[in-house]
């Protein structure tokens, strides 16, 4: 219990956000919007780690360090993904996933 806020509230919030991200990932066809859905999913996992750290295991900072590493990996992933997206746009002039059906260039 964090001063009146039970951990279930955090978990329900992050579950909702996670599945909104899943919905966006399944529905969208534009690559950049799919990347945004992935950011939503990663962010919900971060909320989970921080809430577990604060409420269940307050003695150490394990959840916080994991969240820091998740944020760093998300930054690296976003930069590489955007480089790939720009490269694809240069070749195919759009970034729809359904138009990308050949790997060979």
């Amino acid at each position: 219990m964090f001063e009146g806020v039970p951990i279930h509230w955090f978990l329900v919030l992050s579950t909702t956000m996670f599945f909104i991200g899943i919905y966006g990932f399944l529905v969208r066809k534009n690559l950049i919007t799919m990347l945004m859905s992935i950011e939503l999913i990663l962010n919900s996992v971060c909320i989970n780690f921080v809430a577990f750290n604060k409420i269940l295991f307050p003695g150490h900072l394990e959840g916080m360090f994991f969240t820091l590493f998740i944020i760093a990996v998300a930054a690296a992933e976003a930069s590489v993904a955007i480089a790939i997206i720009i490269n694809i746009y240069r070749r195919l002039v759009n970034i729809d996933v359904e138009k990308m059906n050949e790997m060979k260039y």
Partner: protein
Amino acid sequence: MTNNQFMFLLFSVVIVVFSLLTVTSRRILRAATFLLFVLVSTSGLYFLLGFNFLAAIQLTLYAGGIVVLIIFSVLLTSHISEKLAIPPVTKRIYAAVAAVAGAILCILTILQTQFIQKNFDPARTNIRTIGEGMLSTGKYGYALPFEVISVLLLAAMIGSIILAKKRKD
């Protein structure tokens, strides 16, 4: 209702509403802006929990870095006034059924679980503890992941430069 509960509910309403707008908005630049609101209110949640350093990192790196990167790539790859096509109804229904079923399953499981909740300790997250944890090699030390993350960031930087470079073929 205490202050903490009120702030938590405020942040969570903002997060859920703007997440929904992020995945349903038809204008891609607006979707990026809504994602920015989601990330900022997540950092508000971290401030509420007392992780000041983590909230600052979230604001600068996520809201400052990644969203700006996404907005740059949106401006490079599509027109501002361009609207995304509405996805077909069957696809939306299948995706919504999958997401809602998974969410209901997880939420039911969460609500039936009893967690052992402890009293929290407000003085743990000062910057000195974080720095010592990052660089110590003993128990609860994170020197190895810290070094691995630095190599990963270098590799990502070189890789994205090489990928986005114009080829002379």
